C-alpha cells in the first residue's frame, strides 16, 4: 500500500511537471470599466485613516487671509483686468525685496499669462483655498534678463494677442488700428543696450503660451517661490483685496 502511494506521488509529480512545462495560452478575455459610485460602501478603517488629514486640510484651507469687497473675474474687462493687475502687482511687491537681497538690482516688470488665472475671486473672505483656486499649479517665480530688443518682442507679442496678460511695471498703449502708440518700462521708453529684469513663472519662461522671448533669455534666475505661496503671503499682508483696472494696457478709441 505504501509502495503504491509513493508511486502515485512520483506519478503525479511527473504529470504536473510535464503540464507546467506546456505553455499556457489565453483562451478568453473579459474587460470592463467599473464606476465607483456611492452604492459601494466605503471602508471604516480607511475613512478613519483619511479623516485627520482631511480635517487638517479643511481647517487650513478655510483660514481667512483677507477680504474682497467685490467679486473679481478675468472676464471683467478687456486689456487689463483687476484680478490680473492684482496678480502681477503681487508678484512685483513680494519678489522685489527677495530679488534685491540677492542681486542688489531691481525687477523692472512682471509678465504673467491670462490663461494662468484659473478662477474668480468671490466677494467676501479671501482664504487659503482662494489662492489654490486661482493658482492650482506648482509653478514658481523666475526672473529673466532681457535685452531692449527682447523687450520690444514682448510688447509686440502683447499688441498682437490683445489679450489681458497680467503685467506690472510696464505700460502698453495701442492705437485704434492695433499698432503700438507707446510702450514704457518703469515710465521710460526702451533704451538700446539696456537690460531689463522681468519676473514671470517657470511655465512661461520655458516657452508656455509661446512667449519665445522669455525662453531665449540668456539669464534665468530661479526664485524658489511658488506663485501660490506668493499669493497666500500677499493676501496675509493685505487686509482688503480691491484691485482696479487702470491704464497699464489699453487701446485708444480714436
Amino acid at each position, binding site marked *: 500500500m505504501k509502495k503504491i502511494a509513493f508511486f502515485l506521488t512520483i506519478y503525479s509529480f511527473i504529470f504536473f511537471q510535464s503540464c507546467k512545462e506546456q505553455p499556457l495560452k489565453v483562451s478568453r478575455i473579459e474587460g470592463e470599466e467599473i464606476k465607483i459610485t456611492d452604492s459601494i460602501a466605503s471602508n471604516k478603517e480607511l475613512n478613519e485613516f483619511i479623516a485627520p488629514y482631511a480635517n487638517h486640510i479643511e481647517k487650513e484651507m478655510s483660514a481667512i487671509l483677507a477680504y474682497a469687497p467685490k467679486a473679481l473675474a478675468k472676464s471683467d474687462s478687456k486689456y487689463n483686468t483687476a484680478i490680473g493687475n492684482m496678480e502681477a502687482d503681487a508678484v512685483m511687491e513680494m519678489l522685489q525685496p527677495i530679488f534685491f537681497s540677492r542681486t542688489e538690482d531691481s525687477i523692472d516688470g512682471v509678465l504673467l499669462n491670462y490663461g494662468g488665472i484659473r478662477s474668480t475671486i468671490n466677494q467676501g473672505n479671501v482664504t487659503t483655498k482662494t489662492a*489654490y483656486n486661482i493658482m492650482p499649479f506648482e509653478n514658481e517665480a523666475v526672473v529673466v534678463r532681457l535685452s531692449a530688443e527682447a523687450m520690444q518682442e514682448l510688447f509686440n507679442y502683447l499688441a498682437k494677442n490683445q489679450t489681458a496678460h497680467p503685467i506690472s511695471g510696464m505700460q502698453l498703449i495701442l492705437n485704434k488700428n492695433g499698432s503700438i502708440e507707446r510702450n514704457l518700462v518703469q515710465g521710460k521708453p526702451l533704451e538700446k543696450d539696456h537690460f531689463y529684469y522681468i519676473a514671470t513663472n517657470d511655465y512661461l519662461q520655458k516657452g508656455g503660451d509661446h512667449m519665445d522671448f522669455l525662453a531665449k533669455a540668456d539669464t534665468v534666475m530661479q526664485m524658489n517661490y511658488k506663485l*501660490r505661496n506668493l499669493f497666500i503671503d500677499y493676501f496675509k499682508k493685505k487686509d482688503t483685496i480691491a484691485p482696479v483696472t487702470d491704464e497699464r494696457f489699453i487701446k485708444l478709441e480714436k
Partner: protein
Amino acid sequence: MKRKTFIQNTAAAGIFTGIGGLGLLSSSFKAPAKHITILHTNDVHSHIEPFPADDAKYPNLGGISRRYSLIENIRKENPNTLLLDAGDIFQGTPFFNFYGGEIEFKLMSKLKYDAATLGNHDFDNGIDGFNAQLPNADFSFISSNYDFSNTILDGKVKDYQVFTKDGVKIGVFGLGIELDGLVSKKNYKETQYLNPVEIAQEMTKKLKQEEKCDLVICLSHLGYHYDSDKIDDLKLASQTKDIDLIIGGHTHTFLPKPTVTKNLEGKKVLVNQTGWAGVNLGRIDFYLDQENNISAEGAAIEV
C-alpha cells in the same frame, strides 16, 4: 518552442505507458483553466475623497475608500488578482500640496497595489520629493524607459517584474512619457528618457522568451492617442508583439470599454485606460488554458 513541447509530450506518454495500471488518472485528469484578474487605475491625481454631490461632472463618484471595498470583494471572488497603476498618482488636490504624496502611497499600500509606473506629475516635487515618499510605498515602481542610474532613484525603480499567480507568470514592464518640455529639468534631473518602442521590444523579448511569461502587461504613461507622430499606446501596440495588455494613462481618456487593436503580427492586443481621479476601476479577466484546449482563432475577447 513547438519542438520542445513535442519532446515533452512524448516523454510524458512514455511514463504513462510504463505505469498503465494507473491509466485512470491519465484519462480523467484535465488541468483546470486558470483565471487571472487585472485591476487598474491611472491618473488618480491625489483624489483621495469622492467628488462632492454638487460636482458638475462627477457628482458622488470616486473615492479611495470605496475603491478599497470594491477591490477586496473582487479579491474574495478571485484571489489571483493583480492591482496596478499607470502613473500620475500625485498632484490635483491639497492632499498632495500639504503632504507631498505620503497619503497617496500609504493608501495605495493599504489597497495592496502590486506595482505602479511613474507619470510626469510624479516628478512634481522633484525626483527627491518622489524618493522621499518611497518608504511609504509597499508596492513596486516599474519603469523600463527611464534610466535613473545617475539619479537618487538608482536601484529603486525596477525595469520589469514577474508576478506568479496560481502558477501563471505575469510579466509587467513600464513606459513613461518624454519628460523634456513637460517636466522641468530641475525636477527630473539626470533621468534619461529612452525610446519606448525599442525598450518595449527589448522587454517583451526578455519577458516572453527568457522569463517565459504567460502574460505580458505594459504599464504606460505615454497617452492613449495623438494625431501627431508622438508615440502613444495605440501606436505602441501596432509596432510591437507579445504584449497582451497595455494599461494606459496621461491623456485622462475615459474609454467606454477596453480597445481591441492589432499588434505587429496581426494578433489582438488590449489597450485600456480608466479616465481620471479614480472615478473608475479597470478590470480585465484573463482565462488561460493548455494550448490544445484553445481554438485556432486564438483568445475570445468579450468586452
